[in-house]
């Protein structure tokens, strides 16, 4: 009887360990990859820039993080999906007619599950802006 209980106990223990191992390997299969990290310096610029992010049909989730900071002028950031629909935007800035330098910061984090496949765009629109933009994406397959 005791032997039987002991055998049952070890069987259960073995099953739990096997299931847990399987689960761990499942998480290992979902790879995380940093596929874009870009720093853009803006020096009293007014030229519009466009950064493209390619999303394939295997992408389960994408995290897009944009950090920006300006000390002069104005800066707008716009995010568009592959169909051209605006998915987010923000703008930061100082008054254009003053020379007072003041730090203004804007950050956006977009966490998109099964995002639209294709080329996503991040538009950087400065108006006499001095500052920086940092774009990072984390893709989960």
């Amino acid at each position, binding site marked *: 009887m005791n032997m039987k209980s002991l055998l049952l106990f070890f069987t259960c223990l073995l099953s739990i360990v096997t299931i847990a191992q399987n689960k761990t390997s499942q998480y290992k299969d979902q790879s995380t990859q940093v596929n874009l990290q870009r720093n853009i310096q803006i020096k009293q610029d007014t030229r519009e820039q466009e950064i493209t992010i390619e999303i394939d049909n295997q992408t389960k989730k994408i995290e897009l993080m944009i950090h920006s900071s300006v000390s002069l002028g104005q800066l707008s950031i716009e995010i568009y999906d592959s169909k051209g629909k605006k998915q987010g935007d923000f703008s930061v*800035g100082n008054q254009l007619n003053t020379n007072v330098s003041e730090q203004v*910061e*804007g*950050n956006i*984090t*977009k966490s998109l*599950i*099964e995002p639209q496949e294709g080329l996503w765009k991040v538009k950087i629109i400065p108006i006499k802006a001095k500052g920086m933009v940092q774009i990072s994406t984390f893709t989960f397959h």
Partner: protein
Amino acid sequence: MNYKLILYYNIIIASLLISSKSIGQDNSNGKLTGNIQLDSTWSSTIYLSYIRDFGELHSMSSKMILAESKIDSLGHFEFDLSYLPEEKNIFRLHIAKKLDSKNSIIIGGNHENYLIFIANRNSEINLKTTQAKPPFKKVDFGTNKENVNFQKITNLVFKQDSIASVSGASKRKFIEDKLIKNLLRDNQLTSLYALYKSAFESNYSRHKKFYKSYLKKWSDTDNNYFRDFKNKLPIKKEKKSTKTATFFIYAMLLLSGFILGKVNLPRSNRIKKLSVQERKIYDLLRKGATNKEIAEEFNIGISTTKTHVSNILSKLKVKSRKDIMNLK
């Protein structure tokens, strides 16, 4: 008799005092009190900003900040709203990370740092946040119904954002439709906020009828938010493009007429630019009258006549009296 006079006098003085007090006294007692849960990464100051139009919902600059308040160790803060306008407007509360500038906006994620709400000089708002990450994710506005609705829209949009964009397309559409359907019942600012959050510019073609009835419903109101919305609505652009096309066709026809030498600008249009006196002088000029004859006719000096003639020539864009006589 004297007593009566004194009594009347006292009554008049008393009523004047009461009325002057009520004129001088500002009855507005708007106040915002709140309680917020923050971890040690946030600084203990909270800022109140004015959102002039919906385009500024995600904008940040120091000029937008109206006031700041200290958050005490229990998370309590307070703002006086009595100086705000009588009309309802949109405002934003935001906090900043200790290492960041006070002028910082964080959109999305666990560190989203702002809350949008409606207020005027009479608003008595008491809010309480019930979640620390992100700090303004769950806000209880108590009995303030319009801000409870405002918050519902924010939460609905958050749900919509977190739906998978491919597999959840029908769910997304359902939420968008729910947003749109519930709008006509609400007050203007709340409904406009919902429209902005449902990306009205891209779903306009799907709900054309709704937008037309919405514009009609609020046609009597005029404020920054509604004006901005009307300007951004493609409905106006459609009308504009039709007008532009008509103007272009008209301009092309006119140009070809000029090229063929068959069309001249109507004389009546140019004459409309002349004053009453100039028109009378113009009639004489057409008949070939000299300056002296014109001066005598209108009993004015030669120099005044010359000034009138010179004005007429410049308004009609012609060089000489002969050109006036040749005008068709």
